């Protein structure tokens, strides 16, 4: 009973605070990007820019208004659900995001489904066999995986599986997927590459947190009582280690939405990370702002879930 009330209070609290955080992020992004040299009009015209064509385009985009005015206008639009019009694509920002966000979510979800259980298993196994051969081998393996630059993993994977073996396509445009086999083939390499990146943090944090719990006195008690190591790990240590683990998982998963621009570029995957990078390059401010909102919202959601999980699993935290 108390748990549910606590959870509900937390969620409400976070909702209010979440809105505040979103506002702060939007202000930060607006300020930082206004420091960028050049603007959308100059970018659009590129080498062929002349003062008058730039001025005309600026007027069209509304860039001739001062910064705070533009920000206020954008905020006003945001409140009514209107994300504005993209400068470069001449279509509503919401349409643009609607085409890319589902793709990013799908890639993130598939990667999460593959990487989280794997990372947890690796972390727990390593902690249980602490100091032993398995622990060392697993540590070395996860460390080596994260040490290699993403683009190298991706390019090697493409060279081996697409060019040499022709098992998988080099690109993952993912436009018309008809069956599970095609789905697998399209997503295999991007997911593989991303797993290399995110498994390490989750696995290592799992191992460290579980190890910490395993060295606590109540675990010694359980072992003295004759409990088997696996039972000790799963029933006693793990629940108390869930807090930090959930946090590490949340951080890693939030990376999967905004940090995957390299994978999206190499595999031509039309996701939202490359949309934001392109928007920064083109100084397409409405799109940059909207993407930042999306990433922030997703992150807050993940973190809320992580905190809920942490609180509900650690009895001592419930009385905060």
């Amino acid at each position, binding site marked *: 009973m108390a748990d549910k009330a606590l959870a509900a209070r937390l969620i409400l609290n976070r909702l209010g*605070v979440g809105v*505040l*955080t979103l506002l*702060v*992020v939007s202000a*930060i*992004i607006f300020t*930082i*990007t206004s*420091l*960028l*040299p050049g603007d959308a009009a100059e970018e659009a015209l590129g080498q062929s820019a002349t003062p008058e064509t730039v001025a005309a385009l600026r007027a069209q985009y509304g860039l001739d208004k001062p910064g705070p005015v533009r920000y206020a206008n954008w905020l006003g639009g945001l409140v009514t659900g209107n994300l504005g019009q993209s400068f470069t694509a001449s279509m509503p920002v919401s349409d643009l995001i609607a085409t890319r966000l589902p793709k990013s979510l799908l890639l993130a979800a598939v990667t999460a489904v593959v990487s989280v259980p794997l990372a947890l298993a690796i972390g727990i196994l390593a902690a249980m066999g602490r*100091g032993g051969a398995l622990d*060392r081998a697993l*540590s*070395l393996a996860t*460390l*080596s995986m*994260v*040490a*290699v*630059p*993403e*683009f*190298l993993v991706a*390019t*090697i994977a493409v*060279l081996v599986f697409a060019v040499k073996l022709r098992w998988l396509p080099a690109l993952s445009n993912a436009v018309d997927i008809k069956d599970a086999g095609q789905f697998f083939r399209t997503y295999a390499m991007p997911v593989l590459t991303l797993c290399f*990146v995110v498994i*390490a*943090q989750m696995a*290592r*944090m799992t191992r*460290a947190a579980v*190890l*910490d719990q395993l*060295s606590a006195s109540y675990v010694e008690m359980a072992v003295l009582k004759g409990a088997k190591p696996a039972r000790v790990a799963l029933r006693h240590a793990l629940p108390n280690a869930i*807090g*930090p683990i959930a946090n590490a998982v949340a*951080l890693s998963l*939030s*990376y999967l939405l*905004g*940090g995957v*621009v*390299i994978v999206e*570029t190499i595999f031509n995957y039309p996701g939202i990370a490359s949309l*934001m*990078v392109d928007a*920064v390059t083109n100084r397409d401010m409405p799109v940059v702002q909207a993407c*930042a909102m999306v*990433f*922030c919202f997703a*992150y*807050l959601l993940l*973190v809320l879930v992580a905190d809920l999980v*942490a609180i509900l699993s*650690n009895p*001592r*935290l419930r009385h905060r």
Partner: protein
Amino acid sequence: MSAIPVGLVRSGWRTATSLPIAGRVGLLFVVFWLAVAIFGPSIAPHDVGAVVSPDAFAPLTAAYPLGTDYLGRDMLSRILHAARFTVGLALVAALAASATGTTLALIAATAGGWIDEVMSRLMDAFISIPSKMLALVMVAAFGSSAGLLILTAALSYTPGAYRIARSLAVNVKTLEYVQAARARGERLAYVAGMEILPNMVNPMLADFGLRFVFVVLLLSGMSFLGLGVQPPDADLGSLVRENIGGLFEGAPAVVTPAIAIATLTVSVNLLIDAISGRATRVVEN
């Protein structure tokens, strides 16, 4: 006066020899890379930008022990120079990120209340901004100096360290002896520094090791976006990136910097694992 350094050396040696094998291997490579970072540029046979050969992506030869790069420059010299950038930038940035994050987290965890809320929300705001994006904007706005790269990396990874440190601190805070200390009336700073921090050290050390790797990877990710230290200088990640065209033929130009990155980052973490493992045992004893 001379007893102190001798004592340090002796206790350092004792620590080193008492490490398990993995730790010793890690230590060996870390020392190796530190040495390369410090002395590399002075022992490099060629200038970092000199085109020495008409052949690009040449194999290992006596004249060019690690082959040549895409322009025909000596890879050995380039790697010796690059190590300094990678090690230096990553070390400073990761240290800054971990230290700042941990400090802020301790303050937030012990002070609690609105300080905790405000700090956590601000950090959340920054975490949700993808690090590559932040780097892109920072470099485009402020240019590409080493100092800026360190600042950008530190800014990107402090919030993450903060978050993890805070969740650890909060977890520790609920343990009996910490609550006992608070009940005794100990000052917040004392509680933070003497009771909470020592129990966070191990996971935070592991996190520092990962932060170090993340900064190294951020640097190579930035090279993918065309940002980073000014040419002809490069960090190890940029070396991999600019020579990626030689991947198909397995040119040393792309393989050797990748191995360099791997050995550097893995060894740092092996060493940290060994030290933190030792620390646990010391605490238990």
